[in-house]
């Protein structure tokens, strides 16, 4: 069972085969998506007609490549905007939360902590519809009372960002809290003994210490926002983020341009993953 316990050759070989099969199962769908982005065919399916880069650089229908497909490029832009706003907002709040839960003692703290974890156990679709219902209740009330329609509370990018922010903040809080817990408070006290105000001490001593966690949480938050589907689906208005645009095309049955987008996403995620691995490394010493 473990290397120090002897086991039969048959057992070891079949165990290894199982693990290999598992990894083939994990990798195959991604390899297939990537491979068919280079297939010289109008459909992402067999037969293999040879290699082409049309699905990246093709300029005309029906072979409109990713880099000339304005609708897709625009939706990527929308996703980047939403993800940037969501990431910055959730990092700011998560840092406050980390200080609140790690440093302060107050009645009802445990209850608030459990509440803070709640967004993780609410299915994304339901989080989306609940925010949709509540925001339109507020907007309707405003319209009736003040005769003014708050555009931001109707389905659209503001609501999408709010919906994603609602649960991404919890994840960011967990990451940043874990790092803050390791911080030695005496360092901050030393800074204050040397004449720094509390805020200066936090800004010059504590926040630099939190930097790896902030970066790590930022990468995760950006990816989660960029790739979010369930919550976004319920709150989206006329501007579609990339996941929604891709979903619509997938249902219609699209050309391999979607494979090209997927490859772009894989490259993007890989870069972000490298950034987070790179920034997390020093703390392992």
């Amino acid at each position, binding site marked *: 069972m473990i290397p120090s316990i002897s086991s039969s050759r048959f057992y070891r070989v079949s165990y290894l085969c199982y693990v290999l099969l598992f990894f083939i199962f994990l990798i195959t769908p991604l390899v297939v998506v990537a491979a068919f982005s280079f297939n010289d065919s109008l459909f992402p399916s067999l037969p293999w007609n040879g290699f082409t880069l049309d699905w990246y650089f093709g300029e005309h229908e029906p072979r409109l490549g990713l880099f000339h497909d304005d609708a897709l490029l625009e939706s990527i832009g929308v996703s980047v905007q939403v993800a940037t706003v969501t990431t910055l907002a959730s990092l700011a709040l998560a840092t406050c939360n980390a200080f609140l839960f790690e440093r302060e003692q107050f009645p009802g703290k445990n209850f608030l902590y459990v509440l803070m974890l709640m967004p993780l156990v609410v299915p994304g*679709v339901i989080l989306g519809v*609940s925010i949709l219902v509540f925001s339109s209740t507020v907007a309707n009330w405003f319209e009736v009372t003040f005769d003014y329609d708050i555009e931001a509370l109707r389905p659209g990018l503001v609501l999408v960002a709010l919906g994603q922010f609602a649960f991404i903040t919890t994840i960011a809080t967990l990451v940043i809290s874990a790092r803050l817990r390791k911080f030695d408070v005496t360092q901050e006290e030393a800074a204050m003994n040397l004449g720094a105000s509390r805020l200066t001490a936090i800004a010059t001593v504590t926040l630099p210490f939190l930097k790896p966690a902030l970066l790590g949480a930022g990468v995760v938050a950006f990816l989660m926002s960029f790739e979010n589907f369930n919550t976004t689906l319920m709150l989206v208005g006329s501007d579609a983020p990339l996941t929604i645009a891709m979903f619509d095309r997938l249902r219609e049955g699209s050309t391999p341009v979607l494979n090209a987008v997927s490859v772009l996403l894989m490259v993007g995620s890989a870069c972000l993953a490298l950034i987070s691995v790179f920034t997390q490394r020093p703390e392992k010493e």
Partner: protein
Amino acid sequence: MSAGPGGSFSRTQYRLGFWLLLAPVVLWLGLLIILPHIDMVLVSLRERVASRQYEFSFSNYITFFAEPLYWNTFVRTAVMSIVATLLTLMIAFPVSFYIAKVLSGRPKMALFILCLIPFWVSELVRTYGWMILLRETGLISGALQWLGFIDQPVELLYNDAAIMVGLIYTSMLFMVVPLVTTLDSLDNSLIEAGYDLGGSSWHVMRSIVIPHAMPGIMSGCIVVFMLTLGNYLTPTLLGGKDSLWFTEQIYTQFITRFNWEQGAAFGILLLVLSSLIVWAGLKVTKQSFTRVMS
């Protein structure tokens, strides 16, 4: 020394700091989590009697129980989510054990990271990969023809097995990570001691490894179950029009039929089911919510 003259000042500053920290978290949870859910409960408990005229009523819940389609979809979603969770656990456990206990050093890190890679990529892309593999003109159908098992293309998409494969694939990470973490913390000498005392492999597994891994198994199962129950993308794309997933009913009521009262009732029912099963899972294994979540 520094606390001398500045003592009372830093104390008021500290109190102000506390309220400044508390305010955003209360606003966040209040405005984006608590009030929306309360409002959803209120909306689910009303019935439109005329334009902009509503009355308190349980009719949306009565409709749910009276209409077999809704009721069946609900049960079907729950049962398939439980099956998917158990299958994910059974597939992931041996792999996690291999990574945590059989391997060590660099191969261990490499394989663990390899497990995580697919999940850096959007769920949409992963599901798309399965569509290309399973569809009639897809790779698996092509491979089966080439091998001579079948003589014409076969449609493997749009059935429950396809949904199940997609759900298991999508959930794998959330099972492997907690399992590897807990199994890794199990001391090898405990397993050796089990063998020395004459235990069989099965016995050692059942009375040493699995009890030790229970927190990981539980948190993996809870997260996978919730994600599966609330999944919309995978059942819709891999199951086609007849996938009958409960989140699709919610979507239809809200977006297609614009019957928000009914949709809200469905949402509450799904939320209650999900919370009940999470709660029951924690009770049965005596785990605490905050521990499993973080």
